[in-house]
């Protein structure tokens, strides 16, 4: 007998049905890691108009293409000087294993770039491994210590992140072991609900004073970044500049998280592409473009993503999820352990469970042993290097002797959505949706 033709509701598709039934069991919102699953207009929807007759390319393997990047030139005595325009984003020890944190620091050091602490304080081994370390000041202040602050190379005040702008993170009890609980001053095994608002200031006028406090504590030596999830980007960026930021770090909705409500990941914030465009416009409108640097993050995966972000006006990009993937996240090994979590390699988003099959998002010693630091560091460093080479290749093909010389004029859009969001012409036309 022929297989019957199955009819599938678009409204109540299998995933929606499963989600309703899961909530019927749980009685609460669903919590997961990874970031938004939905498709959004992204940097992939842009292409470069590389050199031909009107422009001259640089020789791909011979001519210099500078990648040096300096962040925090506005007020700090010691700006962050990086060899490449890619930094490693803040991810917490707690969400990540110690090996993962140390490997990220080691890889960043090899490439001459910075890595970032996370919610849960500065791990001594992470400080040792990271030549340039950004110390996050988060709403929770877990493990926040003035001694660590003074060891930092920059401070990042976290207002929010792309995966959960306006919402707090969660660290499920199974990851709050004795070490993590001790660093965070929490009862062991508790479901930790991170606050979404700082305890000691409310609003940008207070933040201005907070920033002065942090500068006083660090003798105005190191830059202060403000990291935000992308929502009302134009106003938020302007207020962050007014509050005294040296650097704006803007995280689009594709940004990752170890655990939060899936509704935040899918239904809040705007994609990285329009966020970047609006942030650049905001900086230009108030006359600080170039003076206040812009780092963009959220779904950056490749050299083309890096090159396009720089062409649209970012000074650097930051990577989180893709660095973990380089390390082995979702790699097709230990397949039975993925299956025990109810998933498969390439589909795993079970960071929140603490049972990461490849030892990255776990506090379990046996699982962590699956992530040797040297191997993980090498993979992340290789991946960073490959992205830099890709970005340089695109820059040279556009005739640019520095990746920072890439510009909007080098790009066109492949889709109407990207045209409208990037305010770039649709490829092969003079048409910019919303402008023409």
């Amino acid at each position, binding site marked *: 007998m022929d297989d019957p033709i199955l009819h599938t509701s678009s409204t109540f598709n299998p995933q929606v049905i499963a989600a309703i039934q899961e909530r019927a*069991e*749980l*009685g*609460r919102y669903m919590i997961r890691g990874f970031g938004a699953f939905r498709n959004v207009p992204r940097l992939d929807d842009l292409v470069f108009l590389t050199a031909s007759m009107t422009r001259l390319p640089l020789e791909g393997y011979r001519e210099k293409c500078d990648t040096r990047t300096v962040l925090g030139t506005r007020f700090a005595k010691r700006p962050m000087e990086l060899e490449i325009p890619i930094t490693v984003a803040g991810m917490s020890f707690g969400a990540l294993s110690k090996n993962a944190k140390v490997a990220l620091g080691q890889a960043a050091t090899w490439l001459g770039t910075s890595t970032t602490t996370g919610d849960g304080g500065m791990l001594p081994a992470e400080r040792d491994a990271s030549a340039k370390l950004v110390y996050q000041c988060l709403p*929770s*202040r877990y493990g*926040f*210590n*003035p*001694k660590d*602050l*003074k060891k930092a190379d920059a401070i990042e005040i976290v207002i929010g992140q792309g995966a959960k702008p306006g919402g707090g993170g969660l660290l499920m*009890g199974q990851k709050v072991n004795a070490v993590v609980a001790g660093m*965070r*001053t*929490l*009862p062991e*095994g*508790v*479901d930790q*609900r991170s*606050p979404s608002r700082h*305890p*000691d*200031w409310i609003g940008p006028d*207070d933040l201005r*004073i*907070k920033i*002065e*406090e*942090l500068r*006083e*504590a*660090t*003798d*105005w030596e190191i830059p202060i970044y403000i990291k935000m999830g992308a929502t009302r980007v134009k106003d938020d960026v302007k207020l962050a500049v007014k509050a005294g930021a040296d650097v704006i770090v803007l995280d689009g909705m594709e940004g990752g998280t170890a655990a939060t409500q899936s509704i935040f990941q899918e239904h809040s914030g705007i994609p990285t592409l329009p966020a970047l465009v609006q942030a650049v416009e905001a900086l230009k409108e108030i006359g600080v473009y170039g003076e206040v640097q812009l780092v963009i993050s959220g779904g950056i995966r490749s050299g083309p993503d890096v090159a396009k972000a720089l062409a649209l006006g970012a000074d650097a990009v930051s990577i989180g999820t893709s660095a973990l993937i380089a390390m082995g996240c979702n790699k097709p090994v230990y397949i039975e352990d993925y299956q025990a979590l109810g998933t498969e390699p390439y589909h795993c988003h079970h960071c929140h469970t603490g049972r990461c099959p490849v030892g990255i998002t776990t506090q379990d010693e046996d699982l962590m042993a699956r992530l040797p630091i040297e191997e993980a560091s090498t993979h992340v460093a290789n991946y960073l290097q490959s992205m830099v080479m890709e970005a340089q290749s695109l820059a040279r093909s556009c005739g640019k002797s520095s990746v920072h010389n890439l510009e909007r004029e080098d790009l066109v859009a492949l889709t109407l959505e990207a045209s409208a969001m990037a305010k770039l012409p649709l490829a092969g036309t003079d048409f910019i949706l919303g402008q023409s």
Partner: protein
Amino acid sequence: MTESLILSPPTLDCTGLTTREINQQLKKLAAAGADTVDLLNPQGRHNLAVAIEAPLKVRIRGPVGYYCGGLSEGVDIEVDGPCGWSVGENLMAGRILVKGNASACAAASAHGGTVCILGSAGPRAGISLKGGTLIVQGNVGHSSAFMMQAGTFIICGDAGHSLGDSLYDGTIYVGGEIASLGADAQLAPMTDEDNALLEQQLSPYGLATQDYAFKKIVCAKQLYHFKAQDFSKFKDAY
């Protein structure tokens, strides 16, 4: 800072100095081994005596703004006047004594040491407290001890609404009336140990435990792990 100023009576007049200059001079005095300095004419300035890592005694003769003594470790500050938001924010060790009222978020996220306010404190006092002791002789505003994680919070007067909401751990004592407890905060019986601790903490400030009818508040631990049946508890919690 010149050596002559260290040798002369340790007095620093804030008039005409930037906050940065004041803090730099305090740090230099501390490094030079000074034990006490009087800060004159603070004029409500923010960020005074921030991030001092020494047992320097700083007597501030007048009102201060936000973050007085914030991010410090081991400092001994006295404020002869009121103070603004977040006094003693992220204090690691040492003592801050405020002889007037404090505004919002007193001792926010402090990890250690003692913050003592002889007047009243505004809302969110002891928010996110991670250790140490916060003493308020007067009243505290709403949402005090919100998300408190550890430490001791002694309120001799009245507490505003939602006291101790979503606290993880630590102990709160209230000598006066409590407008309302927040989610997951509950009363617990006072013990001899509690009375001894109060006595030990309050007597240095001339406060007598027996003048107050202290109640003790601790975490009920009902929000530690989600339970599907506790609908209102999770819906109404912060």
